[in-house]
């Protein structure tokens, strides 16, 4: 078990390392291959009116003239231990993890990202809670009432949920609940602190429900399929033969097995969302990582985009790791091998 754990952690670290290499390659190697020179790259860091000389100086200062592996080494070093940044006039220490400075604001990227993580986490966590309860619940009910009118209507709603994009359901719900009825916020969010947790929830309820609707629909379908399969397993028949109540049979024996694959997907979905729920955050004007990514992309602000990419990748790798370990907790056959 310990070896399994250590192996998974090492694997995750290696994977992150590869992600940084690939990301770096996309941002710095690919433009080079496309014919961009060091000066072209540096051109984005200085004003439009800058002269050739100034651009070249910037390129040298930022290290774009160094060989690529030196640049990559510096980049990784910045992530791990921080980096000294040469401003031309002086140097500034950019503490680890250093993603560099925004082209536009000249501010370090990392504190920006950190300030946005809670918003995305609030959105993802709350939505996950809702979709897990409703999605799995719906799936169970549908599976147990297979073929009934209830099953068919629930599954039709689920199909709609899977098919309708967020910007449609999001805007629709906004127009109904916020603009017309005025029940909810039109966007933005209060931070979650000890003073006003209800405000926080009140602000987020609409994005939560909208985002959860999409996922709940998918989870309902998954759970239904999983339950239909496990309820036909021999061990479920054994559980019934013991005289257990139907409730125990379904929840303790059927659902326990059906949930295992759902757990995997849940972990990955949550990891993916932590890297920014772009559509939801944009629709509801939530200052999360997804919105940050959109702003960065529009402005062609490379360091920010790089930062978002790495943070998103980190969450996905982390989620993968957690899922692997949870698997061992859930399934004794993995634990004792």
């Amino acid at each position, binding site marked *: 078990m310990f070896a399994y754990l250590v192996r998974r952690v090492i694997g995750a670290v290696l994977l992150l390392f590869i992600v940084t290499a690939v990301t770096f390659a996309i941002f710095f190697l690919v433009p080079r291959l496309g014919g961009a020179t060091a000066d072209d790259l540096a051109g984005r860091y200085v004003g439009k009116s800058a002269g050739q000389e100034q651009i070249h100086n910037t390129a040298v200062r930022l290290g774009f003239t160094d060989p690529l592996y030196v640049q990559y080494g510096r980049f990784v070093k910045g992530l791990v231990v921080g980096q000294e940044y040469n401003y031309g006039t002086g140097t500034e220490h950019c503490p680890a993890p250093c993603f560099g400075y925004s082209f536009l604001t000249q501010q370090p990227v990392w504190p920006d990202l950190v300030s946005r993580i809670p918003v995305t986490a609030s959105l993802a966590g709350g939505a996950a809670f809702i979709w897990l309860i409703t999605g799995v619940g719906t799936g169970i009910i549908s599976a147990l009432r297979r073929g009934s009118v209830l099953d068919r209507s629930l599954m039709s709603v689920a199909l709609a949920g899977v098919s309708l994009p967020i910007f449609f359901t999001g805007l629709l719900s906004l127009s109904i609940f916020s603009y017309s009825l005025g029940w909810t916020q039109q966007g933005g969010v209060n931070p979650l602190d000890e003073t006003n947790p209800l405000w926080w929830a009140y602000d987020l309820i609409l994005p939560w429900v909208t985002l959860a609707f999409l996922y709940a629909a998918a989870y309902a379908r998954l759970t239904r399929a999983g339950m239909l399969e496990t309820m036909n397993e*021999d*061990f479920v028949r054994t559980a019934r*033969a*013991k*005289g*257990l*109540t139907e409730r125990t049979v379904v929840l303790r024996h059927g659902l326990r*097995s059906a949930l295992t694959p759902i757990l995997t997907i849940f972990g990955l979905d949550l990891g993916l969302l932590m890297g920014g729920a772009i559509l939801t955050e944009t629709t509801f004007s939530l200052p999360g990582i997804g919105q940050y990514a959109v702003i960065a992309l529009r402005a062609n602000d490379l360091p920010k985009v790089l930062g978002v990419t790495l943070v998103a990748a980190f969450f996905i790798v982390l989620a993968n790791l957690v899922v692997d370990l949870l698997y061992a907790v859930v399934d*004794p*056959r993995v634990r004792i091998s």
Partner: protein
Amino acid sequence: MSEPIEEVQDAPVQRLERGDAFLDVRDLKVHFPTDDGVVKSVDGISFQLERGKTLGIVGESGSGKSVTSLSIMGLHPPGVANISGQIFLDGQDLVTSTREEVRLLRGKRMAMIFQDPLSAMHPFYTVGTQIVEAYRVHNDVSKQVAKKHAIEMLDRVGIPQPDKRVDAYPHQFSGGMRQRAMIAMALSCDPDLLIADEPTTALDVTVQAQILDLIRDLQREFNSAVIIITHDLGVVAELADDIQVMYAGRAVEYSTAEDIFDRPQHPYTWGLLGSMPRIDRERTERLIPIKGTPPSLINVPKGCAFNPRCNYAHLNGGASETDRPELLDTGNGHLVACHLSPQERQKAWETDIKPKL
């Protein structure tokens, strides 16, 4: 041995009062409506079983033997199967009882063990947890008491170091040990009726012998009624007092084990005996298979369901193809559903079949 058999022999035709036998199944029918038609998995069977006795139900896949046992246990999901007839367990009709009433009997008064002990146990719970669960549904005891009981049961079925093995998961057991654990679980509430559905089919032959011994010993100890369902005539010969041979959802022959093996009367039983190579006899040059394949249960052949595969169907002047033979007593409680006259049957057995086995 002979006296108790007498009692059962007379039973099927004469016993009419409900609940006289411990288990009394009467004209049980289990039909499954499907899009292609009604699958008549069990189409009118009757048998009786006393405590301390073993009934073997023999048949091939699709003969209805497993469906019968699942109906007794009330394990068909509601709305899927149409069940008619009567199943009296100690006088209580299970067919008309509510699902909750039957559930309370399941595991407590009647228990079941299954073919593949690996898939029949939940992979995520320890063996002990699963036995404790079975015991605590029907007994209001603490977890500690139940666990102690589980260890005792594991010890009783011959699992070494039961106090350690109780915390192991099913996949950590060998096939034989898993089946022992299943038996421990089934017997944890001391049921009066134990149904074993192909209990040894998934096991190796030396382990099979151990499990058959175990079932026999435990039956003596607990004095329970046992139904053993199998396709293996060797296994029923080991355990059964009475044997019911099933074909296409109906009983074609029903008698004591001795009669079935020494004086079988139905051509299908002859076919089964001729199909198996015998390790205890001279080796025959050729096996005598039954021609054709078992029928679809949606379109069971008219008349005697076995007639397309029967070598003697032509002797009955067309009756085999039109009339369904009833299961009738041919004397001494030996029941047979066949149109052949006793003389023809006797002749066929003596001249065609017996010498070739």
